[in-house]
Structure formats: C-alpha cells, structure tokens
C-alpha cells in the first residue's frame, strides 16, 4: 500500500476512532468522581490483610495470578530477545577494549552512587508492603544501578560483575519461587497463591503474609531479566564483530 493510501486509511479510521472515543468519554463518570466500587472493595480487603500499601496488596495478594502471568510475559520477552540477538554464524564475539577518556568526576559519581543505588533498590523491594514500591519497581532500580559501572567507562568491570549465567539462574529462581509460593497455598488447603502466612500488624516490616515474599521473588526476577536484556543489547553493540564482510 502506498504512503498516501496509508495516510488516507488512517485519516478515515482515526476520525472514526475519535468519534467512538467521544461517545465513550461522554458516558464515563466524571473525572474526580466519588463513586469507585472496586476501590471500596479492594481497600477494605487490603486493610483486613494488614497491608499498608494497597497497590502491592492488589498486585501480590488479590490479583496474584495475574502478576504470575505478567512475570511470564517478561520471561518470554527476555528469552525472545536473547535468541534474536545471539551472534549468527558470520559474527564472532571479541573482547572489547575500554572506551576513551571519561571525566574523573563521572567516574567518582558512578563509583559512589553504585552501592547507594543497589541499597535503595533492595530497600524498595523489601518494603513493598509498607511504602510505594515492590518487586517491579525495585527490580528495575537494581538492574539500572548495576549499569552505572558501564557509565563510568569500564565495560570490562561491568562484565566481571555480571556473569550472565548467574542472572539467568536468578530469573528462573524468581519465577520458580512464585510457583512454589502458589503451590504452598494449595498444600495449605486455601488455593493457589492464597495468603497463608501469618498476617502481622499493619505498618511493621513483617505484615500481610505472603505479599513480602512474593515481592522479593518478583524483584529478583525483574532485576535479573532487565540485566540479561540490557546485556544482549550491549554485547550486540560493543562486543560482536563481523567475521567477513557480507
């Protein structure tokens, strides 16, 4: 289809979609209204389960099975990217030399911020049931914190701190831990991924049962997954070269 034809089809379709949106938005409740039935049910249940962070309670307690599905999508996407970016037959991996001059200030800031970021990431994961945070956010902070080493200019240092096999195991362990948690709910007689640990008191570090454990497992999986993903792109860019010209 030529470019002009594509734009004409989009113009017609876009206008139709905008009209449908208009009809839908006219019938939706007003922005800022007070009628939220799901919120009332969800918050009441979260308070019952002693969860200070209602969003984590929804993710890891009330809709835990959907979180398991999302984790699987993440695992599958990382697997797909690894397969697609594998060096093909005519490419081979080489040891990269370090990059050119990096400002010493950048290096200092990178080295100082690396342990700070890792600790903050672990804190966000561990306090998922108390403060804004949880496995997903903390996992991403951990993964990007590790790549501060790359920003300080030393790809070799990053590679040493990132033996890729360990992170692949980490992903699998994170995913497996969630399944084991779910099965333990079945064994306790309450249902897959049910909250079977003692609930504790709202506001303390140990509260709301399996939410904390689930959050740590998801954090391990997301962090490992993002590290593996970024590693594929970095290797593609830095360490793979063509064997012969095509």
């Amino acid at each position: 289809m030529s470019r002009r034809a594509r734009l004409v089809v989009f113009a017609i379709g876009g206008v139709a979609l905008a009209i449908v949106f208009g009809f839908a938005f006219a019938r939706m409740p007003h922005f800022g209204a007070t009628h939220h039935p799901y919120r009332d049910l969800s918050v009441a249940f979260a308070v019952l389960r002693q969860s200070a962070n209602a969003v984590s309670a929804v993710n890891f307690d009330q809709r835990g099975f959907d979180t398991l599905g999302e984790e699987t999508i993440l695992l599958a996407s990382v697997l797909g990217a690894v397969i697609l970016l594998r060096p093909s037959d005519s490419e081979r991996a080489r040891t990269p030399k370090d990059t050119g001059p990096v400002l010493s200030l950048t290096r200092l800031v990178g080295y100082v911020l690396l342990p700070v970021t890792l600790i903050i990431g672990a804190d966000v994961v561990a306090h998922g049931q108390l403060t804004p945070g949880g496995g997903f956010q903390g996992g991403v902070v951990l993964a990007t914190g590790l790549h501060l080493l790359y920003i300080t200019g030393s790809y070799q240092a990053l590679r040493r701190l990132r033996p890729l096999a360990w992170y692949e195991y980490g992903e699998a362990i994170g995913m497996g831990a969630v399944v084991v948690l779910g099965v333990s709910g079945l064994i306790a007689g309450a249902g897959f991924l049910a909250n079977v640990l003692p609930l504790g008191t709202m506001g303390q570090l140990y509260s709301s049962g399996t939410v904390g454990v689930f959050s740590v497992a998801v954090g391990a999986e997301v962090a490992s997954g993002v590290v593996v993903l970024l590693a594929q792109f970095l290797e593609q860019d830095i360490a793979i070269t063509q064997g012969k010209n095509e």
Partner: protein
Amino acid sequence: MTLLIVLALTFVAVGGTAVVLTGDPGRQAVLLSVYGVLLTVLFLVLQAPDVALSQVAIGSAVVPLMVLLAVRAVRSVRERRR
C-alpha cells in the same frame, strides 16, 4: 480539577506529540526520556507514587538506553554492508 493537573496533562500531550513528530530515532530517545519525566510528574499529581516510581525507572533510563543501543547496532550493520 486543579490547575496542576491541567498543566501536567497539557505538558504530557505536547511531549507525546513532540516524540511522535521527531523523525530521527537518536533524538527521539532523548525526547522519550524527557517525556518519561513528564509522565512521572503527571502520575505523582494523580496520587499514584507506585506508578510514578515504575515510570521514572523504565521510561527515563531503560527504554531510551535500549533505543540508543539499537540505533547504534543498526548503524554499524549498515556500515559493514557498505
């Protein structure tokens, strides 16, 4: 609806349009990073700190980095074929 929410929404709409209308993917990556921060501000104003935390980590760090690495990989592939 407060003025803060209206401003945040307007900035997000303008930022999104700017990202879509930029042709060069390298420049788009930087604009995407800024757009991620604008979205984070909007999510904070809408009382969603969890979503804002997630967006700032992903939309300002991970996705622009991957886009820039992909742009470089494609460019080096094209230079090798020449």
